[in-house]
């Protein structure tokens, strides 16, 4: 199993971004090897958001969390650092999930990010790449693909067309995931019409969780049996 020793790589310094970059590069160098990559923290407290974000958080912007879970294992990490690291990974994963589309139109590279709430689209931000401010002009209310309010003086029509295409594609993917989830529920139960039957599903991916939450929020309109969404958290990773 490829092993990355944090102390050996970074010494006792745990704040240097350069060291964090080295750590991430070591991980990415071993990424495509067949074995799980072990990251050994040596029992030393890190307590640095910047270090952990640079070293590992950026991986969550690149790869889905379920892939990271399968590829990486951490060892000898303190409980406080483990919680901090999970919090950072979740934040970055949300950013990754929020990225919808980017492309060059005219003189600028445009980036579109979405704001989701448990699988429902709340808002859409389209802005030139590198803009960190989320000014009011860049956000639009967007409800269920029915209503779209935009200012053509700010965003070229070509950009909006591409973003819309991507949104439709994404919506179709979510709907497909919901159908799969319902089939999974049906398969797990002999008779979903029995009111006393409780079906417990092991949700494996963040997409399944989002689909389940969406179903719960929309009153499970596509559900023909009585399938109650009781809990929509990912199960703890299997050891």
């Amino acid at each position: 199993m490829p092993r990355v020793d944090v102390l050996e790589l970074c010494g006792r310094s745990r704040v240097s971004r350069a060291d964090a970059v080295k750590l991430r590069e070591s991980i990415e160098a071993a990424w495509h090897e067949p074995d799980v990559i072990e990251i050994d923290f040596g029992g030393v407290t890190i307590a640095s958001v910047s270090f952990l974000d640079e070293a590992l958080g950026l991986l969550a912007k690149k790869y889905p969390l379920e892939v990271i879970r399968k590829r990486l294992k951490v060892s000898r990490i303190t409980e406080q650092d483990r919680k901090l690291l999970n919090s950072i990974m979740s934040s970055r994963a949300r950013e990754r999930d929020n990225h919808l589309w980017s492309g060059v139109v005219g003189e600028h590279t445009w980036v579109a990010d979405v704001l989701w709430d448990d699988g429902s689209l709340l808002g859409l931000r389209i802005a030139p790449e590198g803009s960190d401010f989320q000014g009011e002009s860049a956000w639009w209310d967007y409800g269920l693909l029915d209503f779209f309010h935009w200012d053509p003086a700010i965003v070229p029509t070509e950009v909006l067309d591409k973003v819309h295409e991507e949104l439709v594609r994404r919506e179709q993917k979510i709907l497909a995931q919901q159908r799969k989830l319902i089939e999974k529920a049906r398969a797990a139960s002999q008779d979903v019409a029995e009111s006393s039957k409780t079906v417990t599903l092991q949700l494996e991916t963040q997409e399944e969780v989002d689909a389940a939450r969406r179903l719960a929020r929309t009153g499970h309109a596509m559900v023909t049996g009585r399938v109650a969404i009781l809990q929509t958290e990912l199960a703890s990773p299997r050891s």
Partner: protein
Amino acid sequence: MATTPARIATLPDESTVEYAERVIECCRVLDAAGDDVILNARECATMDAFAIVVLATTLARRRLVSEKATRLDPPRSTDAAKLFNRFRFIDLVAGALPQWEAAESVEGRQLRAHDTDYVERVASAASDVSEKDHADAKFAVNLCLLELLTNAFDHSQSPVGCFVAALREQSDWLHLAVADRGIGIPEALRRSLPPDRLGDRTEADADVVVKAVTNGLTSRKDRAGGLGLGNVRQQVATRGGVLHVIAGTALARFGPDLEVSAITMGTSFAGTVVHAFFDPHRTPVAPTEASEVF
């Protein structure tokens, strides 16, 4: 020949973060003053870590940038005089580097680069109280200090490094403050905007600072970073504490229960000050749920 009277910069009686604007105004007068200026601390009765670091950076900057001396009219109050002595303001005023001695409840230092050993010591001292379990408390203080120092050294371009002060109250609540005299959070973020977003450069400092903490904005072009201040706020606020961030004209307060308030001061601070007031031993309320990746 008539001489120009010395300018007077007056420290308020309550020189604490709750009266930040008055302390900042005193520092602004020191920044702007010519050769002859008097720091009038006669009426100062109370000081906290915020006032200590802000004043220390101002005096250090004054000496470094312009080699201007400052005369000191020391506090009459015993408590304030003790703090002035403890933090060697007489040396600072004279332009000498202060040797701040660690003590049971008081700690301070001028730093010019990351010093993880120092951070470790401060975190240990702040958290190792009686028989209380201090691992989580030490972690919280460690994290706050490391993030604030990272911001000061990676983003601020401060010519005097930064000043750190930690004061522990009898109740174990901790005042932790870090100040630098760099470009300040609002300017650092504005400089990261592309040229065609000039409109956003007019956004008020207060709004920029709030976004920096709550929205995870970063001046880094590679889109890494931006989580530090938000995490500091979380460590403080979930323990019932209060975080103040002052930069430019912005005075922002982040309290428990997601309270946020921000005003535009009538004065301005050239740099950034962050002051955290919290009990590191308190169990965080409603910790954020995160997907368990590891």
